[in-house]
């Protein structure tokens, strides 16, 4: 009964999506479940996870009507809640285990849920919309299953999902990492963006440009940029395309081992038909798997091609800010990746028009692309470009949804105790941020047991986290180090005076 089987098996992750508006009548509880991982768990176990979640959502609303259950901390598991859409909840249950370093920061786990949902909406639209389109739930289930499974496969290392643990405490999922541009390069990029914007004639396009796994430029809102950036780094950039070789990206490391291939996409998560009140997706047609692995390659014309959306079919994505759909075209030259977004409304003749736009890009922008690539390559400091000697840091700008951090290789040199102390400090800051609506202005410097200084600074929507292992003894020395860093790398954003 219950979750007794939680500890059995090697898989310690559970992830479910459910709709509180469904399955209100006795005997129909299964109807609530839209997604459950791992899919081979018994219904009663699935229902037990969802029953507890729903019970606590209702319970906490008695006292906190505006913010229902966010997390359940039990002795052996953390249950992380995220209300992705009104009444549509995602819950992740992870097993705590100090020995295998399963020490989490809840907010980091919630950002995983947030990211997978944002990406889903970007490709498929909202979960609610799909439910309304087909109220039996077959459609949404058939979409969610491959999507989330493909996403989770990115986190697969060895036989287990590698969730963001304390080792990734100096990273921030759901933010964009930027390339710093020299003045002349910035001018070149600006001019390139101008050309890209107008390559579909009078209709304004959007563009997102990346160099390696760093953002060079965007014309989208910060929220949309985060989504497009995340997807690009997952599947489109040169690092992503050379799948198998490890990417040095801040957030996505490790090799990609596609797991879903063993399961046919047509298999629904809730077993074969009959048991479900919903139709088995018979009317849903072919299910598209936007996050499918190893499906992108570079075509002869420099544009990336995939058959995920069908032969010669160009994918479309939904932009949150305007709720418009855009064709997603990706052009790659060396390490430069250009994501061009063309409004679907402007394309009358389908792929014919798309080819025309591509033609325009090649004709009008090739020279500029060459030049930009050259400038960026020349100024490129390599993987450790943003390493600052003596510091291990993470800098987050919440307004712009941008972050910069010490390279993972450098962070890995920190002692485990330092990382754990910093992780704990970040948890404290998360709590403080959660409590006040306005932006917090605060500073915490802790000298940990192992003499490392772990530091958090919050100022006007910007956050700086730092571990200084070789700082000398005093608080004032540590403060001076932060001050120097702030002046040199943050335009004094965290300076005291």
């Amino acid at each position, binding site marked *: 009964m219950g979750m007794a089987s939680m*500890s059995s098996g090697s898989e310690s992750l559970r992830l479910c999506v459910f709709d509180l508006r469904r399955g209100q009548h006795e005997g129909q509880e299964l109807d609530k479940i839209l997604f459950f991982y791992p899919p081979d768990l018994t219904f009663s176990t699935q229902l037990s996870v969802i029953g507890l979640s729903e*019970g606590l959502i209702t319970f906490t609303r008695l006292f*906190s009507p505006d*913010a229902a259950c966010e997390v359940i901390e039990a002795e052996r598991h953390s249950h992380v809640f995220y209300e992705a859409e009104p009444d549509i909840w995602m819950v992740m249950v992870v097993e705590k285990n100090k020995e295998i370093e399963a020490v989490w920061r809840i907010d980091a786990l919630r950002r995983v849920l947030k990211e997978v949902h944002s990406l889903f909406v970007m490709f498929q639209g909202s979960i609610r919309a799909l439910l309304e389109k087909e109220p039996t739930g077959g459609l949404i289930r058939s979409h969610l299953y491959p999507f989330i499974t493909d996403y989770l496969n990115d986190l697969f290392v060895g036989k287990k999902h590698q969730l963001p643990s304390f080792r990734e405490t100096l990273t921030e999922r759901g933010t964009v990492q930027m390339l710093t541009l020299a003045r002349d390069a910035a001018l070149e990029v600006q001019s390139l963006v101008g050309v890209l914007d107008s390559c579909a004639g009078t209709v304004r396009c959007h563009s997102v440009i990346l160099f390696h796994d760093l953002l060079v430029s965007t014309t989208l809102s910060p929220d949309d940029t985060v989504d497009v950036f995340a997807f690009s780094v997952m599947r489109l950039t040169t690092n992503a395309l050379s799948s198998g070789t490890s990417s040095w990206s801040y957030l996505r490391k490790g090799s990609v081992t596609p797991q879903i291939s063993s399961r046919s996409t047509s298999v629904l998560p809730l077993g074969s038909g009959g048991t479900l009140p919903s139709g088995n997706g018979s009317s849903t047609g072919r299910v598209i798997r936007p996050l499918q692995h190893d499906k992108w390659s570079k075509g002869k014309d420099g544009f990336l091609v995939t058959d995920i959306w069908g032969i010669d079919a160009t994918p479309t994505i939904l932009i949150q800010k305007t709720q418009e759909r855009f064709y997603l075209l990706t052009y790659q030259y060396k390490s430069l990746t250009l994501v061009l977004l063309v409004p679907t409304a402007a394309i009358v003749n389908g792929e014919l028009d798309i080819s025309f736009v591509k033609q325009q890009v090649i004709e009008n922008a090739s020279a500029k692309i060459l030049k930009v690539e050259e400038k960026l390559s020349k100024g490129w400091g390599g993987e450790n470009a943003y390493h600052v000697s003596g510091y291990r840091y993470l800098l987050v700008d919440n307004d712009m949804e941008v972050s910069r951090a010490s390279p993972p290789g450098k962070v890995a040199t920190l002692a485990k105790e330092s990382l754990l102390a910093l992780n*704990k400090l970040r948890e404290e800051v998360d709590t403080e941020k959660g409590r006040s609506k306005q932006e917090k202005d605060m500073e*915490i410097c802790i*000298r940990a*047991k192992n003499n490392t200084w772990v530091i958090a600074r919050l100022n006007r929507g910007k956050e700086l986290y730092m571990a200084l292992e070789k700082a000398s003894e*005093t608080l*004032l020395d540590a403060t001076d180090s932060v001050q120097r860093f702030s002046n040199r790398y943050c335009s004094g954003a965290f300076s005291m005076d």
Partner: protein
Amino acid sequence: MATSDSSSSPSSSGTEFADPNPSTDPETNSERVQSQLESMNLSQPSEVSDGSHTEYSGGDDDDDVASANGNEGGVSNGGLVREGVAGTSGEEEMEVSLRVENPVEMEAGEEPPSPTSSGYDGERGSSGGATSTYKADDVSEDEIREANVDGDTASQHEAAWLPGKRHVDEDDASMSWRKRKKHFFILSNSGKPIYSRYGDEHKLAGFSATLQAIISFVENGGDRVNLVKAGKHQVVFLVKGPIYLVCISCTDETYEYLRGQLDLLYGQMILILTKSIDRCFEKNAKFDMTPLLGGTDAVFSSLVHSFSWNPATFLHAYTCLPLPYALRQATGTILQDVCASGVLFSLLMCRHKVVSLTGAQKASLHPDDLLLLSNFVMSSESFRTSESFSPICLPRYNAQAFLHAYVHFFDDDTYVILLTTRSDAFHHLKDCRVRLEDVLLKSNILSVVQRSIAEGGMRVEDVPIDRRRRSSTTNQGQDTAVPDVSVGTGGPFGLWHFMYRSIYLDQYISSEFSPPVTSHRQQKSLYRAYQKLYASMHVKGLGPHKTQYRRDENYTLLCWVTPDFELYAAFDPLADKAMAIKICNQVCQRVKDVENEVFLQGASPFSW
């Protein structure tokens, strides 16, 4: 004074039992939570029957237990201190001879024969005019959040805190109840309510069953729920055998501290009943414990109140009344003599502060036991009105067994507690007290104690500013011009407050509150900041950390943890960092200078 029987007689106040099933709000009522768990066929059916109320023959239906004289409380001496409770009548009855109230002892495993077998009578029978006296309390201390208003408008209410249970007319269907900032619940593992800070336990049977369902649902899955977070709310769970404790709070306190509070609440219950209650539940899972705790509302509410003003609740250390070294030594010698005559512990206390204490050989008193014991004595009216001999249990010392406590108040503040294992020692302890009183009067100690209360403890204003020692006290040697000494108010360089905890002695000293930390609300807020700092320094598995500097819009806080001591200091948020460090050094020096007066020095073998 009221006898214990009065508390169990049916009330004629007209308070009616609520509908046993108070679900008026089908959308959000807690019953729904349970039905959700149940609808999944996975929760155990609650064992609370709707008819459970009929088992009660009265019990907790006093309108309110706050006394009418309303002169209790007030901000002084480092916190909100209760004083002069029912002062006058207490003096008159001081000489009432042996009056062992209901001297029935609950032996291990034995079912208590009467509802108040704990042998003492809490606050009873003084219910007139209560409503007018706790009005201010509603806004300042307790604890309805004002919607959309972060209203500090209430800060001028200097919380006249009154003991006892409030808002008994509420239950989980009332909005006002749901909006209380901090709930405490004790329930049995069958879901029967034992204690609720707000509302009538009877009416909360359904809610209690829901809490039980959540706990056992997770337990059935082979896990144990510790914390649920929702927005600003935290729901903290603590399971102690057959007893479940739950706190629901939006007070911005840390999980660790809330859990510690539940632990103390449990300890307070054990102090009254001993752990042998576990056996009652073994015999009968539906055992109803509420009658056993009849009349103890004031004890629990006073403990809950202390969570927001008494640092001992999170420092796990006790504090002493400042006294000349020789006087404390002299007092210790007399107490030592008392212990030598077969007494386990002898304590001379002043409010919650220790004047002196000694223990029999090898016996040691845990600071938490001391806290719970003094809370029990201070909050129970009957101890003040006559000398008492009462069974109590020290949960950290031995949770299984009752000791016997002889308590006598010399005046409103000062009292002696003599603890023995012998149930027939009353006359002996009384003799001890008489001898002790003789010495105290002859040596004038009681009046020195009174003077010390009046004078208060260390003040931040007294921390010396030694300009000459500047370069030697900090190794930074910043010889720039000294900034204006009077940054803000309070002590030098914006020092507002400090606490110093001696790890070796298990004692702490806390400075008196100085401007600008004057209102109860500000003091509570500072303590909460300290609590966070404490939790942050003592992270499980990682800590303790060595140093912490923390600045936000309210304070600059500094903390040092060394093998010998811990220092917590609060400064003006704009205080200069280098200067603050220097001042902290001076505070430590200052405490060391006066340690013989502010601490009880190793007179007795304290070795836990």
